């Protein structure tokens, strides 16, 4: 029996009258890629906010890797091994691409109360950061200011930064949005190759990517999980087709 | 070999209203001295402190080190003086405050080379307290600014006033709206209000005093709030309710002595036809005091001991008649009740009576000189 990496129980979040997350239960097994799909405004990003600690939940519990993290700060959740990416790009715009990634690496190497040694010349940070950039196909842009990247490149950097924290589990919020076909297929391949190494919760509207990657899929509508199953099961689910997929 | 006198005043900001009068008075004194001291040529060097202690100190340093002045005078504010005086005193210069009545220098911190040609902060309001007793005021409301000088004014009046203080408010200097205080005054129904609101605070406060209708019911008594420098402004703004109000001071333009008459007349010629304020009078006396010292030293300004001795004698024609110095080098002098009058269409301050004679700062005996 595989271990449960993430267990969400009865999670609730209200925005005023709106119930964005409605008594949600999700289990993600160790090593699986678990996709969450659903219409716009279904509460997917809200779920990631709650999981990553950006939003305080109204009620419910989150267990991750054997401990309860419902009330942990986002930084601590990251240290516990859970890291997210953003749907709307969130990077250090006035840092170089390399330094953006290096910040993540620095984070995983323990506290940063080191006041003296020059971190710019720190071979460990730069070396590891470069490795990740190579994997993401951004190595040629390493020295460019992140703000000057094209939109699609910023999306790639977004994921690189999450990966660089060396997480156990990745929460990916539409990682492929804004990427061209080539880039998104590269990222898809990359994520596939990482299967087993990371547990992933993937939110994506790119169904090609979802069906190619996901082991299991949860469908979210109005904050509730209306279906959960293998890609085949979901593809065949009439309700899901109606609410989300359309009749391609 | 010229004799140089460095003069630090506030010549910018709205507070320059006093500084400019003082500057003019120094120039009148210069003329009266014929541009000479002890037979030597005299040079006055003016600097602006911008109302800030650090700038005042900086300018003092410049006067001492660059211009190599023999004397320093001017200094309107206690905090500017506090920062600046040590520079001059360390350099062995003689320092004459022409306004700032820093009480520490009258007592504990008195210094052989420190003179004050004006007064100590609380003296004037002590005289006010006495005057209030004389005029039969029983219930007094006190209003002042919340800073050191303001508190010393309050302390002064409380020291001598014998009736009841029915209320007391010290407002921060950033405030220009007294609605709350005026309501309290009204509720307390005093038979006199004592205020210390110099400069633009006075302008605003007295305006609101009238708007609230208090001018009709409660007489105003003030120190350093109605003076020759701002009286023309009150007149220009048609603040008629100021006429008849009382304040106390060591001097008035109609004080009857020859030096004063000449000074008042020459000042008007020099400065927009204005009647001088006490600031101007002090400034005039400061330079005359220095001149007396230099004369006693036979023109040798570097002979500090001789100069100091001469200054302590204070043998010169002062606008306040004869001037006497205590061992702390603060004047021992009379204080007068003055009233605002309209004389030939020009508002001015007129002496009504002598309130106290030969008054010395209370902390004089703390001075160990």
């Amino acid at each position, binding site marked *: 029996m595989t271990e449960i990496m993430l267990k969400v129980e009865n999670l609730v979040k209200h925005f005023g009258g709106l119930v964005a997350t409605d008594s949600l239960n999700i289990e993600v097994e160790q090593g699986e890629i678990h996709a969450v799909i659903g219409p716009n405004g279904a509460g997917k990003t809200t779920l990631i906010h709650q999981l*990553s600690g*950006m939003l305080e939940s109204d009620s419910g519990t989150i267990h991750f890797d054997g401990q309860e993290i419902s009330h942990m*700060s*986002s*930084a*601590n959740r*990251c240290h516990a091994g859970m*890291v*997210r990416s953003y749907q709307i790009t*969130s*990077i*250090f*715009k006035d*840092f*170089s691409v390399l330094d953006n990634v290096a*910040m*993540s690496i*620095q*984070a*995983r190497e323990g506290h*940063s*109360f*080191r*006041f*003296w*040694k*020059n*971190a*710019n010349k720190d071979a460990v940070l730069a070396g590891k950061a470069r490795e990740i950039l190579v994997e993401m196909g951004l190595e040629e842009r390493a020295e460019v200011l992140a703000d000057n990247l094209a939109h699609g490149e910023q999306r790639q950097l977004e994921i690189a*930064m*999450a990966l*660089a*924290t060396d997480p156990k589990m990745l929460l990916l919020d539409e990682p492929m949005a804004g990427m061209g076909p080539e880039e998104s297929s590269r990222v898809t391949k990359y994520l596939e190759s990482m299967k087993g190494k990371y547990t992933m919760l993937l939110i994506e509207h790119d169904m090609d990517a979802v069906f190619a990657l996901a082991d299991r899929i949860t469908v979210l509508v109005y904050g509730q999980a209306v279906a959960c199953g293998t890609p085949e099961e979901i593809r065949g689910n009439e309700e899901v087709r109606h609410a989300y997929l359309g009749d391609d | 070999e010229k004799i140089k006198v460095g003069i630090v005043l506030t*010549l*910018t900001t709205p507070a320059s209203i006093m500084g400019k009068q003082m500057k003019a008075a120094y120039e009148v004194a210069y003329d009266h001295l014929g541009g000479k001291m002890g037979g030597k040529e005299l040079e006055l060097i003016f600097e*602006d402190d*911008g109302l*800030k*202690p*650090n700038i005042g*100190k*900086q300018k003092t*340093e*410049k006067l001492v*080190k*660059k211009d190599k002045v023999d004397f320093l005078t001017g200094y309107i504010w206690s*905090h500017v003086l*506090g*920062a600046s*005086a040590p*520079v001059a005193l360390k350099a062995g210069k003689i320092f004459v405050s022409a306004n700032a009545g*820093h009480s*520490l220098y009258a007592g504990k*911190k008195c210094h052989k080379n420190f003179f004050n040609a004006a007064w100590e902060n609380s003296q004037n309001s002590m005289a006010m307290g006495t005057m209030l007793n004389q005029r039969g005021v029983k219930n007094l409301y006190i209003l002042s600014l*919340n*800073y*050191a*000088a303001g*508190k010393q004014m309050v302390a002064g009046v409380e020291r001598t006033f014998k009736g009841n203080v029915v209320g007391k408010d010290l407002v*921060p200097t950033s405030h220009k709206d007294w609605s709350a205080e005026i309501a309290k005054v009204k509720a307390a129904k005093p038979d006199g209000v004592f205020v210390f609101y110099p400069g633009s605070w006075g302008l605003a406060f007295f305006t609101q005093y009238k708007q609230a209708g208090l001018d009709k019911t409660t007489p105003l008594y003030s120190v350093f709030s109605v003076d020759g420098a701002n009286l023309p402004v009150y007149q220009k703004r048609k603040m008629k309710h100021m006429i008849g109000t009382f304040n106390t001071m060591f001097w008035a333009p109609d004080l009857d002595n020859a030096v004063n008459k000449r000074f008042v007349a020459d000042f008007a010629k020099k400065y927009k036809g204005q009647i001088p304020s006490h600031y101007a009078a002090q400034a005039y006396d400061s330079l005359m005091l220095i001149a007396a010292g230099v004369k006693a030293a036979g023109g040798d300004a570097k002979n500090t001991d001789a100069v100091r001795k001469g200054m302590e004698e204070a043998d010169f024609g002062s606008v306040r008649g004869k001037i006497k110095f205590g061992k702390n080098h603060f004047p021992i002098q009379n204080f007068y009740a003055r009233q605002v009058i309209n004389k030939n269409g020009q508002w001015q301050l007129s002496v009504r009576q002598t309130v106290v004679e030969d008054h010395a700062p209370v902390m004089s005996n703390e001075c160990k000189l």
Partner: protein
Amino acid sequence: MNLEILKTPRGIYNSLLILLCIFMPWIAPAIGQDFFTDVFGRIMIVAIAAISLNLIMGFGGMISFGHAVFVGIGGYAVGIFASHGIESAYIQWPVGLLMSGLFALIIGAISLRTRGVYFIMITLAFAQMIYFLSVSIEKYGSDDGLTIDARSDFGIPFYDLNDALTMYFTVFVLMVACLLITRKMVNSRFGRVIRAAKSNDERMHTIGYPTYGYKLTAFVIAGMMCGLSGLLSANFEDFVSPDMMFWTFSGELIFIVVLGGMGTIMGPLGGAIIFLLLSEVLSNITNSWHLIFGPFLILVVLFARGGVEGFLAKFEKSPEAKS
């Protein structure tokens, strides 16, 4: 010594600033303006305060509008002890630094809950409270200030702050130390965290940094550095007064940093020299010098983005990352 820096206008300018500070005690008499040595001593003391502000504002994005309060705390530590006859530097200085640090810790801990303009205003609020407190304490002079009769005593033979040159070079050495500390720190791991938090604080949390603690640490370090400026100022001026923590001085510190070039190492020193020297020179020319100084500041903003350092950096070929 690396002479590379002399190849760029910025490098030359920065070297010039330092050389000017070193040699002013000899330059000043040579040009017949002895008091310029004092002016420069004062400039360097202000520069230390500006350097400390730059540390949190330029690199950490924490715009403190109450920074001068730490100058005041450092200054009053000397003043209050001296007024009780305690002149030992070994009591005055550690207490001054600790108190600045402690106040920074309290102010920072509360203020850092807010951001942006709210942060600016809450730091101002705390500074104003302490200012009004200092004005109301008559025992220590209220707004008349405290004259300090004896400078801090280090008890070391031949090292006496009453000696003008000793005082001057004490200030100089400490200022250079602050510059070096800043330089080391902003490039260290800690410094990178602060700078990244300025850039995107939320993202910092999600990649694992509880930035609050880092920012608070930086705030406390800056507070203590600024307290040092106060300790020096009290000794240099022989005088402390609430004026030194009024908001206008906090404002001036901000102007100095922006003028010199925010987020650069040498910016605050350059800013302090230009700001204070220009005030000094202009005010000696005319009393109405604000008529010239005001437009000068406007021109700097309009035509030199990033202050003087930013202006000079335009002449460099490759826009280097912040040094």
